[in-house]
């Protein structure tokens, strides 16, 4: 998306309800800035994120997709993020194999106390994706305005 002649990426962030979504709330409470490019979707646990959702976001024009969950060992449901970790490692490796830029995907563990980490992560991720420019390789052209 071009804003005032400058490219702004569209970032979809899946956040688990118990840690990362709360961490994002804390970033807000502490007024820690990160770009408005980030749109958060709340899921009960990072393990609810189906690879289909990640692909769908890319298909519909997202420039980057990030998943945030509780730190390994702290999952509200004990083991959810361990499964996430395996699933996303394999999915991202496959996207890389298909020639999709590695910087467009990321998993980060953010606890409910890590508002600052959430903001920092989003700033870094936005910057990295902005550098890559528009996601052309994984986009469904029909869905563009």
């Amino acid at each position, binding site marked *: 998306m071009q804003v005032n002649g400058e490219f702004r990426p569209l970032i979809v962030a899946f956040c688990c309800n118990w840690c990362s979504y709360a961490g994002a709330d804390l970033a807000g409470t502490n007024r820690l800035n990160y770009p408005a490019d980030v749109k958060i979707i709340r899921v009960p646990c990072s393990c609810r994120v189906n690879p289909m959702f990640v692909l769908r976001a890319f298909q*519909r024009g997202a420039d980057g997709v990030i998943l945030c969950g509780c730190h390994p060992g702290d999952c509200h449901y004990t083991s959810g993020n361990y499964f996430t970790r395996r699933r996303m490692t394999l999915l991202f490796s496959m996207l890389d194999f298909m020639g999709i830029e590695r910087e467009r995907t990321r998993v980060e563990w953010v606890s409910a106390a890590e508002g600052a980490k959430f903001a920092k992560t989003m700033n870094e991720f936005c910057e990295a994706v902005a550098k890559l420019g528009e996601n052309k390789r994984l986009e469904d052209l029909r869905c563009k305005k």
Partner: protein
Amino acid sequence: MHRIGVFVCHCGTNIAATVDVKAVAEAVREETGVVFSADYQYMCSEAGQTLVQDTIREQRLTGVVVCSCSPRMHEATFRKAAAKAGLNSYMVEIANIREQCSWIHKDMVSGTEKAIILARAAIAKVMLNTPLTPGKTPVTKRALVIGGGIAGIQTALDIAEAGFDVDIVEKQPTIGGKMTQIDKTFPTLDCASCILTPKMVDCAQNEKIHIYSYSEVESVTGFVGNFTAKIKRKARFVDEKKCTGCGECVEKCPMKKVPNEFNLGLDNRKAIYIPFAQAVPKVATIDANYCLMKKNGKCGLCSKVCGAGAINYDQQDEIIEEKYGAIVAATGYNPIKIDKFDEFAYSQSPDVITSLELERLMNAAGPSNGTLVRPSYLSKQDDHEAHPKTIVFVQCVGSRSTECRKGSKEYCSKICCMYTAKHAMLIREKYPDTDVYVFYIDVRTPGKLFDEFYRRAVEQYGVHYIKGMVGKVSPRADGKLDVQGSDLISNEQLHVTADLVVLATAIEPDKTARSIGTMLTASMDTNDFFTEAHPKLRPVESPTAGVFLSGVCQGPKDIPETVTQASACAAKVVGLLVKDELTGNPCVAHSDELMCNGCSACEKVCPYGAITYSDKEFRQPDRTVAIRRVASVNPAVCQGCGACTVACPSGAMDLNGFSNSQIMAEVDAVCR
């Protein structure tokens, strides 16, 4: 057709300062399905809630979107409000335009733009919401405690105190557990039996508590509030109801050479036995492996002398079935086997003993009647060599060790530093002529009055604490033990000639814990300790709803900590049993049987064991009937994490409230 109402909150200036709330309300009015949109100063206020309720009624809304603060803050508020106006509370969605929008963005244009997108995502989601009703399940008001040690006893007493029935299942002939074998307790040095036996008696006398001793749990089915357990009452060949515990049978039993497990094999007992004087229930048990009558049908002495006629050689194992609302695992621990640590010569010399064996040697009811003697002199206690003059304690035997030696444990067993200080102190107190050495790696004494206790052993009682480890113990021909170890502080190798070596053996969960964990579908760590639902915030609950953890089965701990946890556990159990029915979380997984392959992938990733399979008949398109294995989710057990929905390849498994299509719709709306 959906009729959605959208409410945009100013939150004073919290939102309105960086988001043009009027523009948001205006923009979403054009969205499909939206029939009403408005902005308001404080949506969460009484007046704001009334606005929502009035609009629901007037506009006949089928869904509500509130653009406001985080759903973690006020989702419950608006759900309740909607329910009062007759709308299903799960038809409410929140767009978080404060914490995740207005508070982090400075620029009005981008803030407003993002708020509109977040509102659209919430609208897209609510369009696919379905009314959900939490399921209700009744609660059986009875608890099962597996294990009758101090943990199980305390939990049972506290639950009974609150007025609920409790059954204790204990595999030994008596309750009491490890604490019955301990002589004194740290840091107060009061006698363990003196504080434990009253509690055991309380259990026996409490009408609410039923003790199944010499029994084991065979199987458990069901889920929170509705467990069914099968308990095997092993045949003890003595009628519990008739036996008075007089001990006449024990007196007359001719079979005297049975290793006495209560004294860790340091002495012998009879084939019919009562483990110790204060046993509860105080009932004799026949050990069929040794009983002459059971083995070759000759003897019958105990039956002849029993005035109550309680002996029954033909008794059979009995299975009873009982329903429970909650189950407590209190399976306890055992010292590890240390035969593999041959550098300590445990298998070679009777005078190398474990700390638990020392407890028995120092106990007045023990094999030496409380006189500390070298085990090799147990039968000749009057010999002047019988009393050990030099005693070496070795810390961390099998604890804090990598897998390099089989049977060793990576964790710290936590209790050894303290009981060793206790032993050393008691010995020095009673036998001041004894030299006591303690080889340690670290002395770990966090706890109230703990470090003071350890310092007392050093300063007041003159116990020699040596920083270093024992490398080798060699039995000498004269029966003494050569102990070779390092003193890291003086940087020399020490050689001590000892009469007795005491090994602070690592503790491990009882061997039965693993099978009980499987029965309860309660998860365990690699060391076979039960996993807690949350390591910090839910330490006495298992992730499996309705299963609670008490004592060392969750991790190494001492008596005060065990009792604390046991009571905390009881509080949690009571909190469950006091409810007449359980209201479930309706946001649970469900399986579409027509799509299900029965492949078991979902079951493998479910941390709660909520998924079961059954064979069902399905009519095929060609009108034949086929039997297929399909999954079903128990909504009372499912916690709604969604792991199964991703593991399911066919998409048969979906999650209420966060369905595939709902999340997909949000993604689409965000990326539009």
